């Protein structure tokens, strides 16, 4: 299919295009020179007075895999309330708002103009499940990050200071389970949780029975990640998530690897809002946004994503199992916990964020504060840690909140007063512009994922993933007309995925299936480390090593990214 998008206001930060009126040409799934298009055959989209951007990229959303599915099963109430109907030959049906089923997950991303999503926490033993769900998410490209912080084989290597062995194993593991990157969640906690311990584990606490601390794990794996040249930096959910006073823990975690790089981002701190709290208890909770932002503004080796909350029901799900157990004692409704042998643990607890609740209101402020106080939009991305803080369908709202102080004030009118007195947000005037929003939601995540060659921009040769929003930036001021921006962002006028029109006027019109990216070693590794790993497997696991490895053909549309080796 050939498409010509004419006369749109194009926002393409990677190519330094800031709302210029341009034509974007698409042929065979790629962006091409407009001269290469056969205008007789091409579909011409008149984007005059509209915004054209690369497709959105979500760097962190729990959309697929074992715990997401457990969440779906547990959240029956969510599925009764929200559904999408079958349109024969065009789209499948599904249910759920904050734990949506796979098909409608893809449709809802596409409707907002998003075309890539990263599932950020898959335990290796159950990653086959994650891939089966990713296979069933239509339209978007995807990848999954692999939980490694409590993997006993990895901890063994780190404990023995065998970084070379560790590097080889991690590369083998990523390829074996078709993962894209290394994810740490509350480093070391799942080890302790096997004995029912681990709540509040801090960076310098021991992770028994290893002679390691979470700091050692972060540092060791950051080094491994860097030396392997993996496309994505180490992706860390810091220790003590959701506990007052954890801001210090986050600062220590960031600083633990500062000597490894002075310019390049080597550490991604995810859903930072949940890890930016001051105070010693919930009643004296305070915002750590200034401290976090100050650190990021003065150190170039870290990037952040927001983990913004929104008010209403959410489902918290994380590999930080002891935290969920603690949250169950506060929320007192349902609790689902799972341990995965030798690797990880997880918990799920439904939760409701309330405007009038001091803690929740302050959480809402902290997320926005961090995004507004970090100067460089290339290092702070929009997420809700879906479905922890809010469903991903709230991204348009968050984009708009960042663009309009007036909108923020409108929401703050209904918030808990004490929270507003402790928050910095009311005093922040900064408003993001469309270009910066395009950075945060397109260019920056593409770059951080190491996909910037083909993703997150509209230059020649890029994948033809494009979003067109029906909003005229020259006529409408986002600060004042934020409602119109919100409406436009919620439903894209057009979404184009790999050169196919998949959304028109906010409705899914065509179902295509995207790629699944995974890391593959340039050289064949298997035999060298097989013996060692096999021995460990017999001791720790209940499956055969041979059956643990996921074949490439089990992925619907596998796309290897080669790293390492000669």
């Amino acid at each position, binding site marked *: 299919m050939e498409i010509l998008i004419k006369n749109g206001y194009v926002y393409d930060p990677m190519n330094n295009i800031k709302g210029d009126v341009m034509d974007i040409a698409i042929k065979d799934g790629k962006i091409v020179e407009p001269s290469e298009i056969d205008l007789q055959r091409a579909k011409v989209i008149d984007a005059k007075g509209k915004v054209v951007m690369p497709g959105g990229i979500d760097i962190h959303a729990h959309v*697929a895999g*074992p715990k*997401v*599915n*457990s969440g*779906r*099963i*547990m959240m*029956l109430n*969510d*599925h009764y309330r929200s*559904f*999408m*109907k*079958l349109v*024969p*030959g065009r789209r*499948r*049906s*599904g*249910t759920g708002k904050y*734990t*949506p*089923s*796979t*098909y409608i997950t893809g449709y809802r991303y596409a409707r907002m103009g998003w075309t890539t999503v990263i599932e950020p926490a898959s335990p290796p*033993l*159950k990653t*086959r*499940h994650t891939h*089966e769900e990713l296979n*069933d998410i239509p339209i978007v490209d995807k990848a999954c990050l692999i939980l490694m912080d409590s993997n006993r084989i990895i901890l063994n290597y780190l404990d023995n200071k065998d970084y070379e062995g560790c590097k080889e194993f991690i590369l083998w593991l990523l390829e074996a389970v078709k993962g894209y990157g290394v994810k740490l969640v509350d480093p070391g906690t799942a080890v302790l949780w*096997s*004995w*029912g311990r681990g709540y509040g584990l801090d960076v310098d606490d021991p992770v028994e029975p290893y002679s390691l601390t979470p700091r050692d794990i972060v540092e060791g794996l950051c080094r491994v990640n860097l030396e392997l040249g993996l496309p994505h930096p180490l992706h860390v959910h810091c220790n003590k998530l959701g506990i007052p006073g954890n801001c210090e823990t986050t600062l220590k975690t960031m600083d633990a690897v500062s000597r490894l790089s002075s310019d390049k981002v080597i550490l991604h701190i995810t859903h930072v809002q949940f890890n930016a709290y001051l105070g010693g208890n919930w009643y004296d909770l305070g915002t750590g946004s200034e401290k976090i932002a100050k650190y990021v503004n003065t150190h170039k080796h870290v990037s952040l994503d927001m983990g913004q909350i929104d008010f209403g029901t959410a489902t918290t799900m994380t590999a930080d199992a002891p935290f969920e*157990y603690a949250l*169950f004692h506060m929320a007192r409704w*349902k*609790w*689902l*916990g*799972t*341990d*995965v*042998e*030798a690797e990880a*643990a997880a918990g*799920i*607890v439904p939760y409701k964020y309330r405007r009038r609740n001091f803690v929740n209101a302050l959480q809402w402020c902290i997320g926005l504060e961090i995004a507004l106080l970090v100067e460089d939009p290339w290092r702070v991305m929009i997420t809700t840690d879906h479905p922890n803080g809010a469903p991903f369908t709230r991204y348009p709202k968050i984009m708009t909140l960042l663009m309009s102080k007036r909108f923020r004030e409108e929401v703050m009118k209904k918030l808990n007063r004490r929270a507003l007195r402790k928050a910095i947000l009311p005093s922040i005037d900064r408003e993001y512009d469309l270009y910066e929003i395009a950075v945060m939601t397109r260019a920056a995540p593409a770059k951080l994922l190491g996909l910037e060659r083909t993703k997150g921009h509209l230059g020649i040769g890029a994948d033809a993933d494009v979003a067109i929003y029906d909003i005229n930036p020259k006529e409408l001021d986002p600060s004042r007309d934020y409602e119109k921006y919100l409406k436009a962002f919620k439903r894209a006028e057009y979404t184009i995925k790999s050169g196919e029109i998949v959304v028109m006027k906010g409705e899914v019109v065509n179902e295509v299936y995207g790629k699944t990216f995974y890391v593959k070693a340039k050289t064949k590794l298997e035999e060298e480390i097989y013996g060692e790993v096999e021995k460990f497997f017999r*001791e*720790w*696991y*209940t*499956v*055969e090593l*041979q*059956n643990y490895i*996921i*074949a490439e053909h*089990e992925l619907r549309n596998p796309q290897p990214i080669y790293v390492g080796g000669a």
Partner: protein
Amino acid sequence: MTSIEVTLVTGRSLAQGIALEKGKLSEDYLKNVAVVELDENDLRRLGISEGDTVKVKTKFGEVVVKAIKSREPHPGIAFIPMGPWASLVVDPSTEGSGMPTLKGIHAEISPTKEPVMNPVEILRRVYNLTKKIPPMDPAEVVVVKEETKRIEKHVTCAFCGSLCDDLEVVISGGRIIDVRKACALGRSKILHAHENRILSAYIRKNGELVKADLKEAIRHAAKILVNADYPLLYGWSSTSVEAIKLGLELAEILGGAFDNTSVICHGPSIQALQEVGLVTCTLGQVKNYADLIIYWGCNPLHAHPRHLARYTVLSRGVYVKSRKERKFVVVDVRQTSTARAADLFIKVRPNEDYELLSALRMIIKGFDIEASEVAGVPIEKIYELADMMMSAKFGVIFYGLGLTMTKGKSRNIEEVIKLVQELNEWTKFVLIPMRGHYNVTGANQVCAWTTGYPYSIDFRRGYPRHIPGLTSAPDLLANGDVDAVLIVASDPVAHFPNEAVRHMLKIPLITIDPKWSLTATVSDVVIPSAIVGLECEGTAYRMDAVPIRLRKLIEPPPGVLSDEEILRMLLDEVKKLKGIGGS
């Protein structure tokens, strides 16, 4: 004539599991399944000896079976293995839960001179079936000779929810000649894989099943489904995830109902999870850490024979290394063979598990119990068990259908989940359901990620709905709501209660199965399929939701396709009939 009153329990037995692989019309099956296990004392009270026939009568029906002496004493309890005989006397009412009552039913037993009916006679005389039952193909599959002998290692066994993946299969001449490391059930399934097979497609014409071309059979099946007002697609627990996915798409397009067999096994477990959550882990955690292992209402030595050795009591873990370091408790209504091996056996009165679980919760919360016994268990023993639970380092409860099929159903499971959640205040404690069919967990997983609901899904309104008791297969059939049924890899005619079977026999029936089942013999279209894990590949989920790949080891019989291939053809045909483009 003398008669005695008993509590009837139905379920899997080892002999039933082995015999069913030889075929439901085999002598072995009749010999091992048309029986009632009675206590020696009860036999004496009836004045009969082992091998005599007895009549079992409940509020819901009666059946004649052969009495056999139970290996372990269980006075007052009668056990009939699941199958067409048990189905005649169980309680079909699901009380709005989707789950009929299959255990803990009041029954009367008396000696009789009447003969035991075989499954065909049951269909004829009890259900008044007039359809002709085909003379089945000679069961043996003829295979192309292959000279070399090879051994396939790390093979996953597709029988029960344990999904042992360390089997060694010896193949010669294109056929499996030996299996190593498998239990009796797995061995039977794999070694008898070539027996009792359906080797051609069939269509029923003028009351008789006649051989048909595969494409013709698929066209015929598609027509039945498209013409139906509200078809039911049922089974799915003994096939691959890939096939289940296609089944869901088919149900969605047809606007029909889709249910998997969990509705009559762990459906109540899912309902409880929906209410309160679950605390669980994978089996390796149990192997490496658990020092207290409790089996409640299940008999793994019969239903999951390698469970104890591979994952629990007898396994060698990283931190807990041997049997000596683990405590082993069984709670059941009768002393099963698993119970005999336990350190502590707690005999609970049938239908009173809820009371016993509540008592444990009370003790753990620090309340005193004034009664001297609860659910037939002396209070000292309950305190002993509570103490063992609270002082374990890592405890686990495995529970089976003894909790889900009896009075209380999902409420029993909610209670055990809450007990485990509360035990986590004291120590590490987890709960794992003993899932039966090898991919019943997978069926729940696929259904959940596709529709949001794990089973009993209705697509009538163009989007998924889930109302157990209404959209669950036993209810849809018993209430006569559906007007055509597609069965994939299941045998509801043998295992569903009386009323449901009656309706099934009245409406068009399509079966896709590797083997002749009772359902296949009475179907209107029969399509043979390859056996997943032997003749075609696919993914299945172990009872702890660990996904494991099943491999293809040998070629299927000539002309026989996998469930996945058949369903894709069927789906394409249905789309064509409905005028839907694309695929």
